[in-house]
């Protein structure tokens, strides 16, 4: 399970979101109550991305909802309820922050760019050293503790690159749509039964 924590409110919030989306009769995949990836449309929800931050009163946490079709993200919604920042995107219609169009940054060199990532859990010393090696050369390194917000920050040009191993689809589904629609690149591949390695960038790095 790594270093994840779970709160009762994660479960209660997922129930609330499921109730809101139920009217569509579209299947739902959620962090707390499961579901399946299908080739047809399905919702992907993370009731609190950044639960540990929420638990400790840190503002880097959000609600994440995506509409997927197979591996394609049709809609992405990431809401940081702490500062009322609503990131939204629809495939082929652009990405927005509080209804204002956003785009990825135009920074093209690592020595001027900010990377956001997460420290890998349950890894060996050797892989941790490799991880640290990969961080050399970036101007700034940030670890927000929320994959969804990391995606939103790349989409809005606040960061330039997001890379992490071991995230789940509900962590990044909405971010896929946001980053692509903001002009960036979203690459993700399955590395075990349900976890992904992701690289989201401004397309220049």
């Amino acid at each position, binding site marked *: 399970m790594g270093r994840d924590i779970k709160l009762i409110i994660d479960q209660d919030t997922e129930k609330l979101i499921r109730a809101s989306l139920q009217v569509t009769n579209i299947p739902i995949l959620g962090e707390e109550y499961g579901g399946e990836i299908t080739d047809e449309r399905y919702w992907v929800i993370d009731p609190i991305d950044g639960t540990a931050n929420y638990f400790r009163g840190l503002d880097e946490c959000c609600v994440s909802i995506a509409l997927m079709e197979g591996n394609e993200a049709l809609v992405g919604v990431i809401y940081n309820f702490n500062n009322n920042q609503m990131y939204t995107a*629809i495939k082929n219609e652009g990405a927005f922050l509080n209804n204002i169009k956003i785009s990825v940054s135009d920074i093209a060199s690592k020595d001027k760019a900010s990377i956001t990532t997460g420290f890998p859990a349950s890894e060996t010393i050797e892989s941790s050293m490799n991880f640290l090696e990969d961080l050399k050369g970036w101007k700034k390194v940030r670890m927000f503790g929320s994959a969804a917000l990391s995606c939103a920050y790349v989409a809005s040009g606040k960061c330039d690159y997001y890379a992490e191993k071991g995230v789940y689809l509900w962590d990044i589904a909405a971010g896929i749509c946001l980053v692509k629609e903001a002009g960036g690149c979203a690459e993700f591949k399955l590395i075990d039964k349900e976890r992904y390695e992701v690289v989201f960038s401004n397309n220049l790095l």
Partner: protein
Amino acid sequence: MHGKQFKMTVNELKDLAVDAARQAGDFLNKSKLEKKEVYK
């Protein structure tokens, strides 16, 4: 397995997701003092 899906446009589905996220966020803001860890 699932009932008939309503004919909603992708834009309408986005609006529904935004409403659901906002409602969830309001709930989470109100619940900040009631956090209880269930397991690690």
